[in-house]
């Protein structure tokens, strides 16, 4: 192999910078899963009866389901009985002041560059930080409250806004949806909840940082976002995770409800620990994300997936109402032994519904990157349109890119377009850049960044910067 390729691989193999474990006492329940565990979780969280019933229903459905095998990822069987399904920081933390947050936890956020203080002062981003499944800090509540916006942990929403939770929980991702969603529904620990009232434009990006910490604790986040009629909200989710040896299971569910004329923009930068260069110790990330768009509503998913050993994730849109719009912009990076099977589902039900899919897969090392997308045009979706573009970029000779676009069209007035390409970062491209004075690293960044441009463009500024850090990419300037 030539030296250019080696350097490129070296770059791709840069060690995970955010691997460290914070020393906070954790209150875990014994490993294993049965009805008693589900009850215990629910009682620890002091949940109402209906929610316990909902969890138990999910658990019973889950017992009858088996793990999906259709995906293009490979991992050792997960022993669901060897996982602890709940962990909360032991010290009780008041939610209303940052000063009350455990200093250890604060330090962790600082290491990650997520100083809440700074965020509070400078960025205008309200942060609901999730640390080991329990929210430990919430900011900007007052500003939001004045507009009638609810933004809190899922547990708090269950306590304070049970009617909203009860009405919408499972309305987009039913508890029986799939194996991992059912598991989540049974044992979910916490997550975020947001409600934007009618006609309100949320004045700031709502933001959550997730983090796995306690050893051996699966992470089961549950997020529910509701934008009432004519409301608008942009939501950011990002994470980094500490380095460790055992595989960690992460099975989150995110539900978005965009009522008539509402707009929800959901952006993710995902940086779970990917495992070492042999794939040891990385996070298994099985996520169900789905949004439902009612009449004239719009749901946009933007994701930058750089972490996890295994990624299984298909942020989807149910375009229920007439003229509703669904968008999916994705950058997925796999290197070393990482495997990603990701994509989207666009289900067109309403008339004149439109969807756009832009997927950019980058594979390096021995990484395997699969795009799997479904565009379904229902019988009633007269005049529906979809445009899909799936591009793959390969770095080196040992990685792979795979594309599986599925199409189900039941209405002949619809229009569906699909474009796909696979390219490789060529040594001659890197040499060309170096001949103009750029280092190999900058050259690769430049090329990768150029490749992802259409997706990065969709990210809110703060996140574009984060994505840029994660990919080690310097953003293309405004020149030209």
């Amino acid at each position, binding site marked *: 192999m030539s030296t250019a390729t080696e350097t490129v691989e070296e770059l791709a193999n840069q060690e995970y910078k955010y691997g460290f474990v914070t020393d906070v006492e954790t209150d875990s329940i014994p490993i294993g899963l049965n009805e008693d565990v589900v009850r215990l979780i629910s009682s620890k969280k002091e949940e109402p009866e209906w929610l316990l019933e909902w969890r138990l229903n999910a658990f019973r459905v889950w017992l009858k389901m088996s793990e999906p095998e259709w995906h293009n990822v490979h991992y050792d069987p997960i022993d669901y009985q060897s996982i602890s399904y709940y962990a909360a920081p032991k010290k009780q933390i008041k939610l209303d002041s940052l000063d009350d947050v455990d200093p250890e936890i604060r330090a962790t956020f600082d290491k990650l560059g997520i100083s809440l203080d700074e965020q509070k002062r400078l960025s205008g981003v309200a942060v609901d930080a999730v640390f080991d499944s329990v929210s430990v800090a919430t900011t900007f509540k007052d500003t939001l409250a004045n507009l009638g916006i609810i933004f809190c942990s899922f547990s708090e929403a269950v306590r304070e806004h049970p009617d909203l939770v009860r009405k919408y929980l499972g309305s987009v991702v039913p508890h029986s949806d799939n194996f991992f969603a059912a598991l989540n529904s049974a044992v979910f620990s916490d997550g975020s909840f947001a409600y934007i009232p009618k006609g309100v434009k949320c004045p700031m990006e709502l933001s959550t940082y997730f983090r796995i910490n306690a050893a051996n604790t699966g992470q089961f986040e549950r997020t529910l976002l509701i934008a009432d009629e004519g409301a608008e909200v942009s939501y950011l989710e990002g994470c980094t995770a500490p380095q460790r040896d055992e595989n960690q299971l992460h099975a989150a569910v995110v539900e978005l409800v965009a009522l008539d004329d509402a707009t929800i923009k959901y952006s993710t930068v995902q940086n779970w620990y990917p495992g070492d260069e042999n794939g040891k110790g990385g996070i298994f990330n099985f996520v169900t994300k789905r949004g439902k768009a009612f009449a004239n509503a719009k749901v946009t998913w933007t994701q930058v997936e750089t972490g996890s050993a295994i990624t299984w994730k298909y942020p989807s849109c149910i375009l229920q109402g007439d003229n509703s719009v669904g968008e999916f912009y994705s950058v997925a990076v796999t290197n070393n032994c990482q495997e990603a099977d990701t994509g989207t589902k666009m289900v067109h039900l309403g008339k004149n519904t439109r969807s756009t899919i832009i997927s950019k897969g980058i594979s390096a090392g021995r990484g395997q990157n699969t795009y799997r997308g479904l565009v379904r045009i229902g019988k009633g979706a007269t005049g529906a349109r979809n445009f899909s573009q799936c591009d793959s970029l390969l770095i080196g000779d040992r990685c792979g890119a795979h594309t599986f676009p599925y199409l189900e069209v039941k209405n002949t007035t619809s229009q569906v377009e699909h474009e796909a390409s696979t390219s490789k970062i060529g040594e001659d491209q890197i040499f060309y850049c170096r001949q*103009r004075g750029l280092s190999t690293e900058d050259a690769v960044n430049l090329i990768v960044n150029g*490749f992802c441009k259409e997706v990065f463009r969709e990210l809110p500024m703060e996140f574009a910067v984060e994505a840029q850090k994660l990919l080690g990419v310097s953003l293309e300037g405004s020149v030209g």
Partner: protein
Amino acid sequence: MLEIRDLHASAGDRQILKGINLTVNAGEVHAIMGPNGSGKSTLAGVLAGRDGLEVTGGTVTFKGQDLLDLEPEERAREGVFLAFQYPVEIPGVNNAYLLKAGLNEVRKHRGEPELDAMDFMTLIRERMALLQMDDTLLSRPVNEGFSGGEKKRNEIFQMAVLEPTLAILDETDSGLDIDALKTVAGGVNALRSPDRSMVVVTHYQRLLNYIVPDFVHVLSGGRIVKSGGKELALELEAKGYGWIETEPATASV
């Protein structure tokens, strides 16, 4: 400026350069001609540090330092510029952006402040005028979908912005129409200066009517087999290479 001594280089198991000797002083323009496959691009590639070319013997000194010891980007920052025979396309990467990044690397290396977007635009507007570059080429991805001639013009435009001390132009004339050839040659001539040297690889005397060289060399079979003044190019145009290839490799400057 540039001192090449007994340079041997191979690609794979193939020996391509078999003892090149060449001295280029500051301000000089040297033309290198020679049949297809004789090693001209290989020589250019070795000077620029292209991967996959192995130097098996000899030395190259550039401004007093061992050029072969430097990484390609270090050579570029030291002022070595290669106008490629086949400029590569880089989809997604903005032409102006790459150039700005490169220029700022060069400036950093020289201890000059980086140019901001405004100053950069001012500079490139001026250089674009020099080469009558089409504006739109600037905002397009590097070389993507450029016509053959546009690619060549873009190379010389980059050279005009980067202001190298040693410019190696590998068949910049091929692909240019007659008017473009004049424009590009005019741009190159405008860049001639007492402290800038050029090595111009070409097959045609025509280019040398515009860029008049101080010396002409014939590269054949991996060696410089004949050197002379600008009139050598005319002779080659008239007689081809046949008559010298048989001659022993004695000449060097």
